[in-house]
Structure formats: C-alpha cells, structure tokens
C-alpha cells in the first residue's frame, strides 16, 4: 500500500457543536457558548484500493467523522480532499447533487433499520441509481441485477421486502445498494455488528472479495477489533475527537504504542486463557465540552499517566514505518523503541 495514490485526504478537520445558541444577554455580556469538540483536528489519508479501519469507543467522534466525510455535515474547519478536490467547500445541503456524490457511498450499521420496509430489494438498490445516475428502464434494471449478482443476492430475492429476508440477505441488499453506483470510497459503519458470527464470516469474505474485484477503498468503522484486524490494511484509533494512534494493522495489533490502544486490545474477549494481563480503564472519558487544550485527554483513565501529561497535549509522532502515536511517554523518534 506504500506507493498507492491518495484517494481521500482529511486535513486538520474539526467539528465543534455549539451547545445552545447563546441568548442575546450572553452575547452582550461576551459570554461564550460552550462547544462540544466532536472531531478536533483530525488528519489522515486513504490510498486508492486501501482499506482503513477506524476504531474507538462510542462517543469518540467516529460517527461525526463519518458524517463529515460522507458530507452530510459541514466541518467547522479543515479540508476533505477526495481525488484532489476539496469537498469541505461544498455545503452539505448541496452535496447531494454534487458530481462527486456517487463516488462516496455508505453501508449502514443495522440492515433492518436502514432499509425502507415498504421497498423491495429491487427498489432499494435502484433508488441511488435512479437519483444519482439518472438511470431508468432497461439500463436501470440491468445495473440493479449486476449489483445483486456482485453481492451474490439471488435474483429471486429482488422482489422481496426486508421482513421476508434473513439478516445476511438484508446485509447483502445494503451492500448492493452502496456499490451499485461504482463508488471509489465505501464507508462501512459496523456492517456486521447486527449479524451472527456465522453470517458475519460470509459477509466479511464478500467485502474482501468486492474490494479486490471493484478496486474500491474502504473506511471501516467498527468496535470489533478482531474484524478490523482481519479486513483492514491500516488502523486509526480515535479517542475523544482525536486520532491517538495510526499504523499498519499487523503492527498496531502486535505492538500497540498508545496506552489507550493497549487497553482496547486487552479488552477483546477470549484472551483469558492466554495469560495476558488485562488492562482495565477506570472511570469515564473527560467531557468533550471545551476540553483543556493543554492536557492529554486520556489522562484520568490512562493507567500510565504522569504529572507532565496534565500540562501538555500530545501530538502524533512517528514511532515506526507508517506508525504514529500521540503519547508523551513514548520515546522520542529515533530513540531505542
């Protein structure tokens, strides 16, 4: 994945949600409205044909980041370059009709909730083709059948409604709908979380196979770290609006550098027999509302935190080839690891 061209470059993206509008009195008194720092200065790239995993606890800003990238939400600042073009400049309201829109598609978490119960599989897959590619008639039918074939959804099921399909079949409809427009970037939000392990295995194989055949890039959001390890080339670990570690999947799982990543990995069930010492995080994350900019956000829950962490916010530093982590306690780059 080294020499691949960059498909998506997210640069210094922030999304701050004001909490309340702030009344006239507040403004007169010069009082600031509190800001929730959902995504707070995120940089990363996804290469063409690369699959990148995004992991972190709920509330860490994963979903906000996804909504920024799929352009259903406007960033407060920063650039989102897709194929060299800055999408952040297109307002979210206009993005639906932007020419770049078909290039980024999304597979949603729960295949039951994300399908219209009154639409057949055929309608569900046809909808984006009709709206974004302007297809109709014979051409539309052909593309729907092609997408269904790509996800191995039997044609007989195209006339069925969601309640007549199994979980795995619904997941296939959700994927077919997303790939029908031949996107270059597929954003997958926990695509297998609602599935049984046996079905999950089949869908993961399908996703891996589609990626090679269609040459798409994946941004794979999940809190199932085992799934991310198996499907992704590179992994981003997010904590309270920031990326705290990023690296090649194999290396990050074998040699996690950030204490948060280590805690996440040690919380994966099924390791009790391995003799590994569990790292347990105590307490809740600090509030994302106006966090202290001069303090590590993981401090308080971090098992390795020290006094210095309270007065300096760590930045991502190189700690291996393509491997970066944001922790003050890491040895400086070039030092003995």
């Amino acid at each position, binding site marked *: 994945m080294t020499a691949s061209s960059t498909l998506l470059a997210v640069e210094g993206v922030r999304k701050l949600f004001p909490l309340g509008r702030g009344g006239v009195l507040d403004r007169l008194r010069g009082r600031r409205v509190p800001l929730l720092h959902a995504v707070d200065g995120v940089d990363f790239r996804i290469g063409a044909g690369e699959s990148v995993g995004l992991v972190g*606890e*709920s*509330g860490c800003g994963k979903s906000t980041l996804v909504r920024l990238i799929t352009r259903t939400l406007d960033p407060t600042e920063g650039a989102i370059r897709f194929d060299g073009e800055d999408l952040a400049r297109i307002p979210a309201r206009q993005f639906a009709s932007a020419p770049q829109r078909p290039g980024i598609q999304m597979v949603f978490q729960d295949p039951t909730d994300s399908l219209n119960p009154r639409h057949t599989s055929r309608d569900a897959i046809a909808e984006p083709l009709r709206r974004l590619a302007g297809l109709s008639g014979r051409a539309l039918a052909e593309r729907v059948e092609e997408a269904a074939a790509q996800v191995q959804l039997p044609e007989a099921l195209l006339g069925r409604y969601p309640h007549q399909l*199994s*979980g795995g079949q619904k997941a296939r409809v959700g994927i077919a709908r997303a790939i029908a427009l031949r996107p270059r970037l597929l954003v997958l939000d926990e695509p297998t*979380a609602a599935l*049984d*392990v*046996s*079905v*999950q*295995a*089949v869908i*993961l*194989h399908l996703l*891996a196979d589609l990626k090679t055949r269609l040459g798409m890039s994946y941004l794979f959001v999940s*809190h*199932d*770290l*085992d*799934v991310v*390890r*198996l*499907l992704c080339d590179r992994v981003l670990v997010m904590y309270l609006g920031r990326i705290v570690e990023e690296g090649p999947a194999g290396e990050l799982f074998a040699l996690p550098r950030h204490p948060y990543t280590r*805690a*996440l990995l040690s*919380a*994966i*069930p*099924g*390791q*009790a*027999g391995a003799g590994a010492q*569990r790292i*347990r*995080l105590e*307490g*809740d994350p600090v509030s994302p509302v106006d966090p202290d900019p001069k303090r590590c956000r993981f401090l308080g829950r971090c098992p390795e935190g020290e006094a210095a962490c309270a007065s300096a916010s760590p930045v991502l530093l190189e700690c291996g080839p393509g491997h970066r982590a944001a922790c003050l306690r890491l040895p400086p780059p070039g030092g003995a690891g």
Partner: protein
Amino acid sequence: MSAPLIADADHPVPLLDVQSLGVEFQTRSGTVRAIQDVSLSVRRGETVGVVGESGSGKSVLFYSVLGILDAAGRVTGGRAVFGGLDLTAASPSELAELRGREAAMIFQNPRAALNPIRKVGRQIEDVLARHTSTPSAQLRARAIEALAAVRIPDPERRYHAYPFELSGGLCQRVMIALSLACSPSLLIADEPTTGLDVTTQAAVMDLIRELATRRRMATVLITHDLGLAADYCDRIVVMHAGHVVETAPTAQLFAKPRHPYTARLVATTPHGAQSLSALAAIPGNLPDLRRADLPNCRFSERCDRKEAACVSEPLTTTEFEAGHRVACRRPL
C-alpha cells in the same frame, strides 16, 4: 457463615435443573417447535454459558423457565426445577413472586427494558418495595446503594436520571442494579453486553462476575460471542435449532469440540484467526422449525459428517468425559 464455593459446585442438587423441556409456538403459518428435549443444570456459584446462533432458542428457553413466554408459546413437556419448585407447574402468582426476588434476568436491550418515563432510582425502589420488606423510609438509601454496588459514579445524582440521560453502559449497569437489588440466587444475563464498547463490555462482565462470586449466585450467560463465554463461564452449553448439541467444561469445549456444529462455530469466530481466509463459514441456515419433516438431528442438513441414521433415528447423547456430553452420532 457459609460453605465455600467448591462445596456448592459439588452440591448434588443443582439450583436450576431443566429436564427434557419442550416449547412450541402456535403461529398462523404452523407450529414452531422452538425447544425440544432440552436438559441443563446450573449450580450455585457457577456460571454457565449458553451459546448458539440467533434463532437457536437460547432466550426462549429461559423465558419459558421464568414463565415470561409470549402468549403464543406453550411448554409441551419436561420440567424446570428451581430450588425444589417445578416452574412449569407453578402458578402465575408463585412465578411472579419468584421473578425479581429469587431469579432475575438482565435483558438484551437496557433502553427498551427500562421504563423511559420513570427515574432509574425509582425503578429500583419499585423492585425493592415489591419483593422485599424494606421500610419505605429506607427505600431511597437502598436504591442508591444498589446503584453504587454496580459502580455507577455519583449514585445520588444518577438516582434522579431518566434512562435517556444515561449512556448505554450506564443503562446496562442500572439494568444490572435492578436485577441484583433483591440478591437473587439465579441471574440470567441475556446478551448483557451487546452493543457496548469492548472496554465497557469488559467492565460490565467483570462486575457481573465479581457480584456473582461474592453473592454465590448461579449465573447463566446467554451470548453468541464465544470469546466472551470462554472468558467468563465455567461450563458452556451449545444450542442449535432448539436442541442442546454439546455441553462441556469451558476449557475442554474449546480444546476439543466434539460436535461438528461446535467446531464450526469456533472456526467462524474472528478472534484468533490469523487471516480472513482462515475464517470459515457455517454452510446453510437453521432449519425451518415449522417443518413437519424435521430431521432427528436438526444440524444434519448443514453437516458434512451426516449419515442416513442422523435423519431417521432418534438423537442420542454420549458422555465422553465427566460433564462433556454430545448429541451426535458421529462426533469428532
């Protein structure tokens, strides 16, 4: 004061003993034979995992034990003896008395199981008032204690919270506090950590285990996450399409699964798989339990070791070593 745990685990009479239980559902499209000839037992101080795909009957089994089956469901045979009382023959009022006090259940989705328009502290008080003789003046203090016992930070403030004001992990802890408020002797945890983060999952499971050990509860963990079952259970019961196919002590089940279904289930689990290609899938689906011609072994249609007798002859259960039972004609 009390006998040590080991003695409990060896106690000849299990706290919950389910024998040849059968459950059917009447639907417009036919009778669903959801549970057939299921036997299992749980002793005091023991944690038993019940695993299997969705639709294997894990939840229905325990709904029928607690008498909270859907109106369309009916127990067709067998017994479920809990501390000497046959639950399948007990009256609704006996069962209502038992539920919440002696046997409690943690439901899958805490947000759906909690009352959305009642403060969480009040909901715990309701359980205490219904099942214990706590004087009403002390209810509040006891509810706050219950919240503190599941390590909810700032319990006095959280007492006044409504479920929508709490995160998923906190709601789950409230659910656990609610189930444990009356110190039940049997806890049934139905997918208690689905939808939670791995870190929260670990915290919630550690908490259940700690409370179970301290209060010598018999615990049933219903899950489809084999990794979770491996970490927290003493014994594991594998279910497939309403049958128990294998029962074994945890280490033994993973070291040497005997039933082809268990082996396949272990192979589909992403944990420990070196690459995606090592992740196998289980062919086929669960059979339609409405079918009149269901084979005797309900796994036979998905099994590569099946022979004619698997379909035509009654299912036999073999005991390999102490406590390792397999319902298969051609075990691995």
